């Protein structure tokens, strides 16, 4: 009963967003730490690909499941597994200028990405907090 209470709304989606933004923040922090490491190539997790997968997962969840589909559902990758792929997707992106010490880090770009990532993370957290407030209001039958 509780699982349906928590899984029916946007909480699972927000949870994935928080996980992803935290993981991405770690990667971007590594870029800043290696600002002066010769030969270091910028690393990143792709937000576009993450959002695409997330959209697919949401669409799949919203589709009504027929009994035959339910039989084969064990074979299909669970959303959690698909999400885990995102974290493995660490590509050496070769965007930007390659300097003489074979680094390509643009501090400005990195800082902007970190700030955007932070906003996204905090947005998801605030939405989650709002969801919990909503649930609490329903459970206590009182508007807090």
């Amino acid at each position, binding site marked *: 009963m509780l699982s349906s209470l928590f899984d029916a709304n946007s909480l699972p989606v927000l949870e994935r967003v928080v996980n992803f933004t935290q993981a991405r923040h770690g990667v*971007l922090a590594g870029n*800043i730490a290696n600002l002066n*490491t010769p030969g270091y190539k910028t690393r990143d997790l792709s937000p576009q690909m993450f959002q695409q997968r997330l959209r697919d997962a949401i669409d799949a969840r919203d589709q009504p499941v027929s009994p035959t589909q339910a039989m084969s559902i064990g074979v299909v990758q669970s959303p959690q597994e698909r999400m885990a792929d995102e974290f493995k997707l660490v590509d050496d992106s070769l965007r930007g200028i390659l300097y003489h010490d074979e680094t390509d880090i643009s*501090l400005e770009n990195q800082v902007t990405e970190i700030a955007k990532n932070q906003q996204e993370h905090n947005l998801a957290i605030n939405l989650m907090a709002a969801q919990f407030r909503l649930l609490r209001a329903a459970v206590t039958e009182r508007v807090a």
Partner: protein
Amino acid sequence: MFSTFDVSTSGLVAQRARLDAISSNIANISTTRNEYGQIAPYQPRYVTFQTDTNITTAGGGAGVRVATVEFAQRPPAMKYDPGHPDANPHGYVAYPNIDMTNEFVDALEATRAYEANVGVIEITKDLSEQTLRLVA
């Protein structure tokens, strides 16, 4: 999440080591003898960095560490000063070949990189604070 702090801290430590080397170079800009008191001009030191995969985050972020401290193998700067106790028979004193401008630009770069890491730590603090707010 908390391993992100370690990554940024490794950046702080590395940049600090670099600043230490730079301040040592500037402090010894007129040093004509080595630590044993023998006549040998100070050799400027330079810190090199390498990616440290012992410090990693969940998404694949990596830390940094000091790889080596290199001694510059430059010929000394010879200055004519016959009265100097360390002057050679021709009256020249071997001073360290350190370019003050280079050192200061390096110091500035290290300081800015240090500040960038501090900025990231502040954001990491904000992220974990926001996340922990859900618990409270």
